[in-house]
């Protein structure tokens, strides 16, 4: 199977990304146990829950940024092995990450590169795309996040919100099948949160498949098609935003939601 056949295959109709019975522990500390998730193409899933519930670690296992202690991750039905290279029908971490983008809480832009270089780095050095083509692609995604005119700036000259939008453009430039967002507004000044959330809403409308860890309940309700409530390393509740955020049945959930909504 070639890379192309395996990735971003529009004909593939199953869940684009799956977690099957994932568990993670650091030495004796159990972070989460037996979590499973099927992410369908075009779906936006929000992961909510109190801090320490394991939602970020779970998200980081989906692109093997953390190695799960047990269980399996599958991308378009192919199981992922914990080595960089593919082996037979199994895909390695390299292939997985080319197809599953991630945006971090602290942006992690490359400070020695301009905004456009940040965005083009993946296509050029990972996908071996010709430079001119990568730059055109980069400008397209910078335009999408509203920062085309900043393409020549260095990250240190940008506001937090702008940095995060560049980080989103950098992830999109790999044209991933799935985008993972790990508390992408938590490090931002309150007045800068809106511009980043607006970009993510645009992506949801464009049909980008996303898994989002967030503390912004209103945003989660607005952007997601499905909400998972994680508590103490388990999925305590799962359903539509309506069921989970607006009409929570579970007591812990309703406590959590009423504390964080507003």
């Amino acid at each position, binding site marked *: 199977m070639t890379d192309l056949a395996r990735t971003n295959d529009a004909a593939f109709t199953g869940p684009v990304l799956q977690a099957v019975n994932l568990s993670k522990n650091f030495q004796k500390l159990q972070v989460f146990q037996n979590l499973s998730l099927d992410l369908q193409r075009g779906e936006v899933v929000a992961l909510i829950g109190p801090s320490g519930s394991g939602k970020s670690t779970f998200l980081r296992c989906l*692109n093997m*940024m953390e190695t799960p202690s047990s269980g399996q991750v599958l991308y378009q039905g192919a199981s992922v092995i914990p080595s960089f290279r593919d082996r037979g029908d199994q895909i390695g971490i390299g292939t997985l990450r080319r197809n599953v983008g991630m945006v971090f809480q602290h942006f*992690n832009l*490359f400070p020695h590169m301009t905004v456009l270089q940040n965005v083009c780095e993946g296509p050029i050095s990972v*996908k071996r795309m010709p430079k001119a083509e990568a730059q055109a692609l980069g400008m397209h995604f910078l335009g999408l996040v509203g920062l085309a005119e900043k393409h020549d700036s260095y990250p240190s000259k940008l506001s937090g919100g702008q940095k995060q939008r560049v*980080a989103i453009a950098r992830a999109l430039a790999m044209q991933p099948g799935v985008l993972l967002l790990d508390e992408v507004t938590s490090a931002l000044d309150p007045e800068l949160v809106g511009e980043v959330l607006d970009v993510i809403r645009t992506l949801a409308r464009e049909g980008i498949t996303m898994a989002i860890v967030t503390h912004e309940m209103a945003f989660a309700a607005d952007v997601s098609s499905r909400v998972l409530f994680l508590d103490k390393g388990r999925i305590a509740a799962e359903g539509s935003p309506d069921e989970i955020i607006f009409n929570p049945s579970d007591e812990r959930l309703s406590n959590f939601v009423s504390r964080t909504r507003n």
Partner: protein
Amino acid sequence: MTYTWDFHSIWQNFDLFWFGLQVTVLYTVGSIVFGVLIGIATCAARLSRWRFLGYFARLYQELFRCTPLLVQLLWFYYAFPLLVGVNVDNHFAAMLTLSLYVGAFYAEIFRGGIISIDRGQQEAAAAIGMSPSQAMWRIIAPQAIKRMLPSFINQSVIQFKNTSLISVLSVADLAYMAAVVNGQTYRPLESYTVMALLYLAILVPVTQLADLLEKRMRTSD
């Protein structure tokens, strides 16, 4: 006490100084090049997942950082040949020791630079599908090199001065040649003053350049 400075005989022997200076520069540049290679390898071993490699690298570093360079030179020239039963040429012993010595320090400078880079950089590189070596050379190293440059230049300046110790193995460097000139002219004050001025003349521009470079890098952040 009155002493009349007389540089006449020194100028007559200036070709000896010139030769010595060239040897000193050669050993400095040579040991820096080998030292950088040794330093990179040692740094890679220290950061490697294989603990055994790390311990081995650490042992080498401690041996060379915690014994005097003079002692190392004497050991490699006089003791090492007895150990391995092969005659060691003094030029070889000098270059080998200088390189191993500076490599141990470079490794620590490189390691410090690399681990000072935020872990998020490695993660961001990994997240777009880069292999660990791509992440190192495209993302981590360019940032780390910038941070380690001042210490690297500083260590290299010290290395230039340290080469004077190879004169004890009769390698004809600047310090050795100054002694030769002194032996011929009986003018120690002039001979050794000219030697000191020559070291100074090379290193002052280097340190000035280093300061300038550091200032420029700080403003480009």
